[in-house]
């Protein structure tokens, strides 16, 4: 980092430094988690001649990576609350760089590193399994359409957990998870009510919309031109879930970080 970079409004170098520091902070936790998973699987091999979570498409690895990533995301801005708040705020990097570093860390670096570590562990476990006379099942890897879809879902939720971390001083994981569940329930309720209303109004599972002389009319019908109610609502829910919620989370989280002040300590 040189003095010229210091005067720039956004520096990729500073983002990388911040992401590197996050990686240093998170590495011990990842190592401990990996050691626990390895230990349990080795125990399983000793007892039953096979690892309990080792196959090519085993969802446990992806599940663990997702949960770990969400926990880390929910802790991303913990440092800006409480006693260390002033130090966090005054570290010479802009709020945008600090926010971007958290995205790089938990949406890119962590999933890649964790997936590589899980692949490595799976490979070692398969070798041990074979050496122990077990079946030597396949090696887990994240290169599949299902894994990519999981990553997409993870990214959407992780963005919300990052926002939760910026918003909540304590128990950010639980509070964000609670809010997410409440949001899903609310969406389900809206979908259910929407379906009921359309069914009641049209007596049909399909509908068409016409606009004439300033009035909007919903008509029932199952013909080829009619829209399926379920499909329409699903598209609407996806738009909310995959576009509006992440956009809101990103904007809200960034504003919380940018506007944070060190007011938590004694005056």
């Amino acid at each position, binding site marked *: 980092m040189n003095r010229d970079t210091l005067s720039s409004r956004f520096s990729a170098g*500073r983002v990388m430094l911040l992401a590197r520091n996050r990686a240093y902070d998170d590495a011990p936790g990842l190592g401990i988690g990996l050691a626990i998973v390895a230990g349990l699987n080795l125990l399983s091999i000793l007892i039953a001649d096979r690892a309990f979570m080792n196959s090519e498409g085993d969802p446990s690895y992806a599940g663990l990576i997702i949960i770990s990533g969400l926990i880390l995301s929910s802790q991303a801005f913990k440092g800006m609350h409480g006693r260390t708040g002033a130090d966090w705020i*005054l570290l010479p990097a802009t709020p945008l760089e600090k926010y971007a570093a958290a995205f790089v860390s938990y949406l890119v670096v962590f999933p890649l590193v964790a997936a590589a570590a899980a692949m490595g562990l799976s490979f070692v476990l398969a070798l041990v399994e074979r050496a122990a006379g077990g079946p030597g099942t396949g090696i887990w890897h994240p290169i599949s359409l299902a894994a990519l879809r999981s990553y997409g879902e993870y990214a959407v939720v992780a963005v919300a957990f990052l926002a939760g971390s910026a918003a909540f001083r304590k128990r950010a994981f639980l509070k964000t998870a609670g809010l997410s569940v409440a949001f899903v329930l609310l969406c389900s309720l809206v979908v259910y009510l929407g379906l009921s209303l359309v069914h009641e109004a049209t007596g049909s599972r399909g509908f068409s919309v016409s606009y004439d002389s300033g009035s909007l009319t919903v008509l029932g019908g199952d013909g080829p031109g009619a829209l399926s109610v379920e499909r329409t609502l699903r598209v609407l829910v996806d738009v909310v879930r995959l576009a509006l919620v992440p956009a809101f989370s990103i904007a809200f989280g960034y504003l919380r970080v940018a506007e944070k002040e060190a007011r938590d300590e004694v005056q």
Partner: protein
Amino acid sequence: MVRMESMTFGYGKRPLFEDLDLRLEPGAIHGLLGLNGAGKTSLLKIAAGALRPERGSVEVYGRAPGKREAAALADVCFVPEDPCFPALKPAAWLGRYAAFRPAFDRGRFDELFAELGLDADKPISKFSYGQRKKFALAAAVASGSRLLLLDEPTNGLDIPSKAQLRRVLAAASGPDRVVVVSTHQIRDLELLLDPIIVIDRGRVAFTVTMAELSDRLGAARLPSIEGRPVVYAERDAVGWTALLATAGPGEAAPPDLELVFNAAIAAPDRLAAALRGDALPEYRPEAAALAAGGRA
């Protein structure tokens, strides 16, 4: 330089500063004094950019710290009263955080680290309170920042450490650097602080240089204060410790800052008059006590 103009700030609905004006020039170690809750720490945090004023402007070397540009943040170093550090050894901490400050002088840091007798093999989080303060001070001085803000730097330091701190602070001052020290322990740093800024009731009550103080004021222990040009006096077992208006240096012992601070709080009008060289009306201790209102 640091400039605050018509700065207003508060917590919730309670205003802490109202239309505060302050100007700090480089090349000096400014002493920031005030009663508990007067807002010394908040003022330092506003100058650093950790708090933002509700109204008015704050500029540090021409930049608004509240915008939190990287260059502005790197030009300021705030050392809190109780610095927190992660469980990292000093070298690891420097590896992670010094990179954000391009002007950080590693050689200077190593010198200070050795001078302050800190342990390189121990995580900073395991340092004692005083050691953490010394480490933070060494990092601040070596940071290359032109504004150093130190909150109660002598609290919790043993006597030799206070002497070390004075040496480090004296050497840290420079023609292009503003150093601000907020303290209750005035006597620990009396010979370093110049000018003195007293904040009271949301405003800067006094800004006075040591030269002005020694020109206009003196301290004396007196059996009686009757007929003397007393600015402020405190009664003790054998008489009075008094701050006197003097006609020039050498007429009385130099005033000690603790007495000046108490005068600024309990008898601000008399102190202002004495500094202007105006004649003082007769001193009434009970009036000063009433003015202080038990706030000190």
